[in-house]
């Protein structure tokens, strides 16, 4: 038995029974990192030395029977756009290659209170903009199932790390699918909670109205444990909400909707088959399943690529070389700022800043950004209507299995299409989860996505666990342990 393969609850049980020490698990996880990092490049920074002392403290708590937290001594990887005090937060950008955060994100504070251990900071697409973790200033990350393939993105480093067991679980951030898509590509559970349930304070903003922190884990229960630890209203985030969870049925009295528009052209047969497989299982268990049409979903990518770049064009304006991060000199302040931004940002980031700046410009606002806001509102209304008929919506997480490294880097539009199924949940603020369900003929993982109405995260997790148990996906990438 390899402890790094176990779920959080199983590990905690071993800790409690004193059959395993947190420091032993911590060493094991770093052994896995040593085996996998050179090939995968999941982590940008590994924390081992610094956390050995904390692992020893966990050992002591468990040996004294004083531990009170399920996450005590659990090594978790953190996406490098979430601030940990006194560590670098680079966002995989040259712009922040030398930036150390003087403060903890709220989620980090919460995990520290639970005595979680951190394995390090994981790679991402620069400022979380991308779907393959190829847009990193510090080198790309590979898929642990097959290193010819991308791990997905932008939380590709987090997913690859959990896949290769160089962490037990990881935090990612999801703006248009950046948790769910890499989780799906790496055969893992990826959960994007309801917008506002997890504080964004300390998460470097990409698109503030869409960003949400969430877990990437091996099991639904692991996601549940982490979600319950990091969620909660935060006085430092004005968009955070009181986490008053709605209780909707997860047993077979629930009605399931299959989204018609996400089972059409552009979705691979393999991806559709996974949904059909799950639908059959649910029907056999007595769930009512029906096809649901939400036509506006077809506009998701268009809406998203106006709103997200518009917000990012302002959010990333602060990176100017004046106060921190990269500074490239110039003859005047303005020249310095221009030089810094020209050199500090990668191509995809620049593309989105330009897109967003354009969409917000005088004369274009109404035509582009204004229309996108309107369409977003309509989509929210459409989902609200849909959830009067069904409790959960099911679809593929991604249109295809993972693609090969380099395959889509020269075609941004095609790259954007890989987020087709995941973007609607961000636009509507819904909780959404990707559950691994099977392997493609190339032996790469596939997953299905389930969404539910805002603030029904716990029920969504319960329902997902039922699917997880029925599907019995026990795939695990080989060769890293």
């Amino acid at each position, binding site marked *: 038995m390899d402890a790094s393969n176990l779920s959080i609850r199983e590990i905690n049980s071993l800790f409690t029974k004193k059959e395993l020490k947190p420091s032993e698990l911590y060493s094991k996880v770093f052994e896995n990192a040593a085996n996998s990092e050179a090939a995968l490049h999941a982590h940008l920074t590994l924390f081992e030395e610094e956390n050995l002392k904390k692992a020893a403290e966990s050992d002591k708590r468990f040996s004294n029977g004083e531990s009170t937290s399920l996450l005590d001594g659990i090594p978790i990887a953190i996406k490098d*756009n*979430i*601030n940990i005090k006194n560590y670098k*937060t680079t*966002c995989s950008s040259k712009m*922040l290659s030398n*930036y150390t*955060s*003087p*403060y903890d*994100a709220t989620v980090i504070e919460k995990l520290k209170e639970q005595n979680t251990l951190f394995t390090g900071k994981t790679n991402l697409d620069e400022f979380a903009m991308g779907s393959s973790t190829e847009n990193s200033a510090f080198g790309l990350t590979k898929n642990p199932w097959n290193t010819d393939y991308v791990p997905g993105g932008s939380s590709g480093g987090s997913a690859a790390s959990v896949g290769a067991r160089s962490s037990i679980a990881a935090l990612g951030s999801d703006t248009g699918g950046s948790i769910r898509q890499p989780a799906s590509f790496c055969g893992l559970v990826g959960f994007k909670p309801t917008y506002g349930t997890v504080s*964004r*304070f*300390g*998460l*470097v*903003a990409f*698109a*503030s*109205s869409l960003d949400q922190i969430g877990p990437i884990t091996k099991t639904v229960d692991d996601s549940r444990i982490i979600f319950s630890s990091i969620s909660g209203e935060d*006085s*430092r*985030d*004005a*968009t955070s909400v009181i986490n008053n969870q709605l209780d909707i049925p997860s047993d077979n009295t629930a009605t399931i909707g299959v989204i018609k528009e996400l089972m059409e052209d552009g979705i691979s047969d393999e991806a559709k088959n996974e949904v059909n497989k799950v639908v059959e299982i649910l029907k056999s268990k007595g769930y009512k399943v029906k096809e649901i049409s939400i036509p506006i979903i077809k506009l998701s990518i268009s809406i998203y690529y106006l709103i997200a770049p*518009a*917000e990012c*064009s*302002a959010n990333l*304006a*602060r*990176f*100017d070389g*004046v*106060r*921190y991060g990269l500074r490239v000199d110039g003859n*005047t*302040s*303005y020249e310095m*700022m221009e030089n810094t931004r020209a050199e500090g940002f990668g191509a995809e980031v620049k593309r989105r800043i330009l897109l967003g*700046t354009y969409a*917000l*410009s*005088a004369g274009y*606002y109404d035509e582009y*950004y204004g229309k996108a806001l309107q369409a977003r509102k309509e989509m929210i209304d459409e989902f609200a209507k849909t959830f009067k008929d069904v409790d959960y919506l099911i679809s593929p997480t991604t249109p295809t299995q993972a693609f090969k490294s380099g395959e889509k880097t020269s075609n941004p539009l095609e790259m954007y299409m890989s987020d087709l199924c995941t973007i609607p949940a961000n636009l509507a603020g819904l909780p959404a989860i990707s559950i691994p369900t099977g392997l493609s003929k190339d032996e790469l993982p596939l997953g299905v996505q389930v969404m539910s109405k805002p603030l029904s995260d716990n029920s969504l997790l319960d329902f997902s666990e039922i699917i997880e148990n029925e599907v019995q996906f026990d795939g695990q990438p080989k060769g890293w342990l």
Partner: protein
Amino acid sequence: MFLKPTIGIETHIELNTNTKMFCRCAVVDTDEPNISLCPTCIGLPGALPVPNKKAIEFITLLALSTGCEITSKGMFHRKNYFYPDLPKNYQISQFDLPVGLNGELEIVIDENKDYIQIERVHMEEDTGKSSHSGSGRIESATSTALDFNRSGVPLVEIVTKPVISSSKQAVAYIEELRQLSIDLNISEGRLEKGNLRFDANISVAPEDSTELGTKVEIKNMNSLRSLERAIDFEIQRQTKALEDGVEIVQETRHWDENKEVTSTMRSKEGSADYRYFSDPDLPNMFLSNEFIKEVETLMPLLPKAQREELMTTGLSLSQSNILSKSDDWIKKLYVKVFDQTKDSVASYNWITGELQGQMRKANIEVLPEWFNDDYLSEIIELIKSNKISFTSAKIILTEILTTETTPSKVAEQKNLFQENDSEKISEMINQIIKENQDIVDRIKSGEDKLVGFLVGQLMKQSNGSVNPGMAKELLLKELEG
């Protein structure tokens, strides 16, 4: 061709909240740079804004006090522009949904009331302070020092409609607004500290024209003198240009305090594109009816109402206006003295004239603690009952401002009580007539002026203790008889 000027004024008032607008940093009044900072107000990655409720209360109070309609569903917008002292390179402000719209402010010029229409009252965060080396302009500075203490301090911006027609009106408007902010207790109202800063939009057009001329903005003045002179200068400059057939360029100009001229700062300001959009970090701000009612209970007696109240005591509009714009202790002292003496003119003259004059001359900023509010009433009563002369009263006032004593004690000690007994005065007059028979003869032969000489002799002999009015009356009677 007669040209008429049209002026609109934008005023920024620094609110006197304890903490900044979007973080909990203290608002500090110090020259020591960068001592009150946090991740939010210096725009560190991942930091988020949380609105200061007190500041919104203050802004609502100002909007209500100027008779604005309150926008119950207000909104925060991002105003995007790059400047080194603007940490996020966008300023959180309000755009199409400001706190207040369409108000009016009563102003007073001499004995006339006037009304300035207010277009909007909205919230803004202040920027940091830049000190550019060399010329003081960013374009040519080789280095710039930045102080972010001011960054994020709450400001309220009040924008008038283009309804002001002279520098005199502009000054009266700022004086009124300043007093209003002091009485509302939302600002210190100290111009010399930059608590109020104003920009003026000035245009000149033929009197019969229905359209406004090309507008020129003069930025960042913070004294009434600058405002007055800059407006006068600009009206003259534009008038001359039009008369000479020179086109006026829409631009932003800078008022040079020393040279007393305006000069071009940047042109085409009108085309600056701030790409305003609703700040996704700050969900819509609802000002509930309960909140507005709560704010209404904080409303003090406004300057306009103070003037009306003062006029009921018998003061003129301009006197009431001067009092309403005086320090609080002066207003209170007036009310007290008037209550006791029922003589508005004497109360007003003694307080705003003699008392303030002597205090200024003697460099006394606050009344000494022994200075009883009743003393002025006592002095006025002593004059009115002819117990002391006006000259003696001034001497008494000087004494009680510098020495711990009372008006009657001073009068006693200095022998300032007047002789009001007509028999005693007549006795003295007879004596004087006897001693100055030659003068009496000359008076009788027509040299009326010499009566004054006899009164003077009388005052001299009585050490000024004789009631001069009575003395003159009795003397004349004696001479005629």
